[in-house]
C-alpha cells in the first residue's frame, strides 16, 4: 500500500473537492477543505516537500481557513445545508463520486490511460529516488530561489495581495 499512497491520497483529494463543489453550506465546505488540505499536504510530503506541506497546514489551514470558519460562523443560517438534506446537492455529490470511482477503476484495470498524457498504471504514481541533488533538499532550494532569483515574483504576488485587499474593501464598502 505504501507504494501507492500518493494515488490513494489523490483519490481522497478529488473526493473532498467533489464534496465542496456540490455546494453544501460553507461550514461543511470548510470541513472538507480541512480534509483536502491535510491530504494535499500528504501528497506534497511524499514528493519530498516537507517544508511546503507543513506550510499548507500552518498558513492555509491554521490561518486562512480559521478566519474563513469564523466569518462563516457569523454569517450562517439556522439550518445549514448538508450533503443529504437537499436532493440537488446529494445528486451532484453522488455524480462526482461516481465519476471518480469510474476513473479509478479505469486506471486500475486498464493497461494505459491516455486522456491528455499517458498514464500507464498505478505504478506511475510511485516515488522513485533519483538521487540527483544529493544531500540538498530540492524544495528548500526552491523556496530559497524564490527569494533570490524570483524576487520579481515575490513583488508581483505581494502587490496582487495588497490590491486584492483594496479591491475587496472597495467592493464591499458600498456607497
Amino acid at each position, binding site marked *: 500500500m505504501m507504494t501507492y499512497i500518493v494515488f490513494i491520497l489523490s483519490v481522497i483529494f478529488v473526493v473532498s473537492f467533489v464534496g465542496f463543489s456540490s455546494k453544501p453550506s460553507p461550514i461543511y465546505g470548510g470541513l472538507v477543505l480541512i480534509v483536502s488540505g491535510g491530504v494535499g499536504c500528504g501528497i506534497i510530503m511524499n514528493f519530498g516537500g516537507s517544508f511546503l506541506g507543513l506550510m499548507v497546514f500552518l498558513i492555509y489551514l491554521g490561518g486562512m481557513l480559521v478566519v474563513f470558519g469564523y466569518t462563516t460562523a457569523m454569517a450562517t443560517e439556522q439550518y445549514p445545508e448538508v450533503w443529504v438534506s437537499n436532493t440537488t446537492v446529494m445528486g451532484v455529490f453522488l455524480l462526482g463520486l461516481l465519476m471518480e470511482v469510474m476513473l479509478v477503476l479505469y486506471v486500475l484495470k486498464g493497461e494505459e490511460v491516455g486522456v*491528455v498524457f499517458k498514464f500507464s498504471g498505478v505504478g506511475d504514481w510511485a516515488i522513485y529516488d533519483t538521487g540527483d541533488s544529493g544531500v540538498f533538499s530540492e524544495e528548500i532550494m526552491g523556496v530559497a530561489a524564490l527569494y533570490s532569483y524570483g524576487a520579481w*515574483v515575490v513583488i508581483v504576488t505581494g502587490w496582487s495581495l495588497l490590491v486584492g485587499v483594496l479591491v475587496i474593501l*472597495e467592493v464591499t464598502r458600498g456607497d
Partner: protein
Amino acid sequence: MNPLIFTTILMTVLLGTMIVMMSSHWLMIWIGFEMNLLAIIPILMKKYNPRTMEASTKYFLTQATASMLLMMAIIINLMHSGQWTITKVFNPTASIIMTSALAMKLGLTPFHFWVPEVTQGISLTSGLILLTWQKLAPMSILYQISPSINLNILLTMAVLSILVGGWGGLNQTQLRKIMAYSSIAHMGWMTAVLVYSPTLTMLNMLIYIMMTLTMFMLFIHSSSTTTLSLSHTWNKTPLTTTLILITLLSMGGLPPLSGFMPKWMIIQELTKNSSIILPTLMAIMALLNLYFYMRLTYSTSLTMFPSTNNMKMKWQFETKRITLLPPLIVMSSLLLPLTPMLSILD
C-alpha cells in the same frame, strides 16, 4: 471612490496588462491576467447599483473561467515540453484549450454572450476601458502563440464572431450594446488574419482602439447612451454630429477613412494565401455592421430625429472635458493615405 485608491487600482490594471505583455514565463502571464481581472472589478462597479454589480459579477465569472482554462493549457504544455517559456505551444490539446481560453477573454463567438450584457451594465468610461484596454493582453498572447494555433478553430471563431457582431447589433438602440457588438465583430476580423500575418492583427487592433476611443469620447461628451439621446446632439454641440458621422463611417470600413485600411490589408493578405470565399464572406458580413452605424449617423447627423419640443431648446450646461478628442478624430479618419508606410513593419 477615494482618489488615491482609485489611482492605485487603475495603475494595477495597467500593471497587470504590462506583466502579461512583458513576461516570458507562463506563470507570470497567468498572474498578470489575474491581477488585471481583480483590479478592474471595482472600476466596473464605480456606481453602486444592482446593474453594475450584476455586470461585474458576469465579467468576473467568465474571465475567471478563462483563466482556469489558460492555467490548464499551461500545465499540459509543461507536461509535454518540460519548460515554462513562451514560445509556440507544443501540444495540440494545450493549443486548442489555450485558444479557447483567450477567445473567452476577448469575447469571440461562441463565448461572446457576456460582452453586450457587461458593457450595457456599466458606465461609459468603464465600458471604454473594458472594450479597449482589456483586449490588449489576450491579443498579445495570441500573437505570441500564433505559430501553433489550430487554424480551423480560430477561423471558425473569427467568422462566427463577424456574423454575430453584425447580426446582433442590428436591433439595438442602446449605444453601449452597439459598441459591444462592434467589438465582437472587430475581434473576429483581427483573429481571422492572425495565423497568416500577425502584424496585421496588431494594425487592426491599433486602429480599432483609436476608433473606439473616439466613439466613446464622443458619447461621453454628449452624455448619451441611447440612439434617442444621441440624436439630440445637433442641439448641444452641432460640430460633434459631423464628427460622429465621420467616425462611425470609419468604423464601418468605408474607403477614404482610416477604418478601411485594416480591412483592405486583411482581405489582401487572405487572398494572397489562396482563400477567396473566406474574405468575401467576411466583407459581406461587415456590411451588417455598416448598416447599423449608418442608422446611427442617419438619426444623429443626417436628419433631425423626431423629438418633443422641449428637447429642441436645451440649456447649455458646462461642457465635460474630453481627453484628446481632436487628435483621436484626426487619426481615426485620415490615416488611409499613410498605408504605404506599413512596409516598414516587416
